């Protein structure tokens, strides 16, 4: 096993609710290990504990029991916060600042040395494709642009780990696709990315490993390929077969001792259709 980026041991988090101090359990004995250099997806319904887990890793809340470590450092410590970047689900920034001013502010907070600041800001803007809008006030940004500038602020101090809480929430499919490409590029730079999303199709294409949580408990965890491949089955996609051809294939499968489970027309995903249609339209206009 390689270096562990995140190590969570028996994490439990209770939130007091109401005047009587009744406890609601958000995380229930969660244990997880995430290797460095991976894109790791957190899946689960609303309220399953994804954001709570991320907040615990950031030190914004404290565990009721258990512990979490980031690259061997206690989650929430200054050392741990130096090696991570965070994009919240709904990034709220100072609307009166321009994109560049915001990044300058966050680079100072992140401890980027003055002489490296400008280069780091330009690099982060370039990574998220926001150079042209950097001089505009954040108040004029679209949702997708806010997510991108939010991602840029997370990248400013060149962190080893990125924690992205639903980075594509409220973003159109094209923007979602763009953020997906940025995340893949970041993985290419050797960064570890912990990402949560409700867009299962995108997570399937993006993540190396995923974990599914529900009611604060880990239901399953593993590599995307391992979790989605049905043991002992294979899928063939054929084109131009007539009825006799299909019969011949079915007979061949039977003759080889196999069992034909399902015959269905091959479909592309709706997001793929959307992206292709928009791309064709854009290319047609240009």
């Amino acid at each position, binding site marked *: 096993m390689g270096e562990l980026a995140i190590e969570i041991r028996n994490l439990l988090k209770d939130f007091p609710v109401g005047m009587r101090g009744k406890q609601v359990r958000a995380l229930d004995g969660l244990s997880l290990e995430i290797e460095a250099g991976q894109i790791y997806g957190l899946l689960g319904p609303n309220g399953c504990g994804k954001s709570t887990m991320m*907040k615990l890793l*950031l*030190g*914004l*809340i*404290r565990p009721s029991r258990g512990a979490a470590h980031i690259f061997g450092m206690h989650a929430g410590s*200054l*050392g741990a*916060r*130096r090696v*991570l*970047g*965070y*994009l*919240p689900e*709904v*990034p*709220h*920034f*100072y609307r*009166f*600042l321009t994109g560049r001013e915001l990044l300058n*502010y*966050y680079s*100072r*907070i*992140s*401890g980027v040395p*003055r002489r490296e600041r400008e280069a780091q800001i330009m690099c982060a803007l370039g990574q998220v494709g926001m150079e042209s809008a950097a001089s505009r006030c954040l108040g004029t940004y679209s949702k997708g642009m806010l997510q991108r500038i*939010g991602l840029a*602020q997370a990248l400013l*101090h060149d962190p080893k780990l990125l*924690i992205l809480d639903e980075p594509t929430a409220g973003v159109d499919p094209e923007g979602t696709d763009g953020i997906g490409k940025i995340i893949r590029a970041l993985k290419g730079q050797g960064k570890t990315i912990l990402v949560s999303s409700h867009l299962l199709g995108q997570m399937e294409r993006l993540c190396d490993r995923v974990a599914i949580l529900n009611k604060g408990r880990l239901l399953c965890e593993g590599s995307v390929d391992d979790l989605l491949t049905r043991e002992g089955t294979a899928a063939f996609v054929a084109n131009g077969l007539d009825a006799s051809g299909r019969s011949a294939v079915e007979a061949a499968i039977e003759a080889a001792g196999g069992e034909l489970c399902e015959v269905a027309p091959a479909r592309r995903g709706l997001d793929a259709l959307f992206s292709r249609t928009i791309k064709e339209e854009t290319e047609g206009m240009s």
Partner: protein
Amino acid sequence: MLRLDQILAVCGLTFTEAVRQKFFYIVLLMGAGMLLGAGYFQQFDFGVDELKFVIDFSFGTLFFLGSILVIAASTQLFYSEIENRTAHTLLAKPIRHFDFILGKFFGVQLLMLIFVILLCGLMTVLLFLRVRALPVVEVDGLVHYGEIWLYGLLQWARFGVLSAACLLVGSFARSYLYTMMVSFLFMLVGQLQYIARESHSEITWLPLRWLVQVFAGIFPNLQIFNVGDQLGHMNATGLTSLIAISMLLYAAVYAWVYLCLAWWNFKRREL
């Protein structure tokens, strides 16, 4: 070096955010309007008595509007970071909670410094013009201009105590309104606290006496900053340097203690 830069960054942004709000300009304009209007209260006596009135009225304006501004600004600029969740992205960065609190405090103090300088500057100009227009031969010494600025400095120190108290309240409050109300109440208690101090010596029942003593220690005696009568005008007795420095130290100690308590609370607060 890094910590100082982080504190300055938070301070700078806090100040920028504050001066972009209309509220600051409204309070500033109100203050300027009241100072300009003070000279036109013709029912009061002319000459030296008029000057005393103008000085008292101007000091009152600085005290009153400054108190409103510092509580509103501290509450807004600190609590909005929690409410708008900008604190989430900020505190996920390697910044200490104490540095964040200090940055906020200095940002508000910078705002209040600008406010005090502008009002004291206007006060000085208006009094200078009024003195020149008076039908008296000897105008020197009618107004002690330096003491106007000393009053401004002492009020700025008092605003510092209030600002630190607001940050302390904001560190545990769950709503903006609650923070505002409790902060105003705090100011009121601080202003009236001298009553408790005076009655303390008359209490014979020891537990109650201790309780009053503890109470008097928790809240600063803001009444000591009401030195307007001793400053500015011809007959004012003035303040010795020792007293002025003692008052500044008194404010600094209370502000520091409140900032430490605010940090202690804020660090434990779950965002």
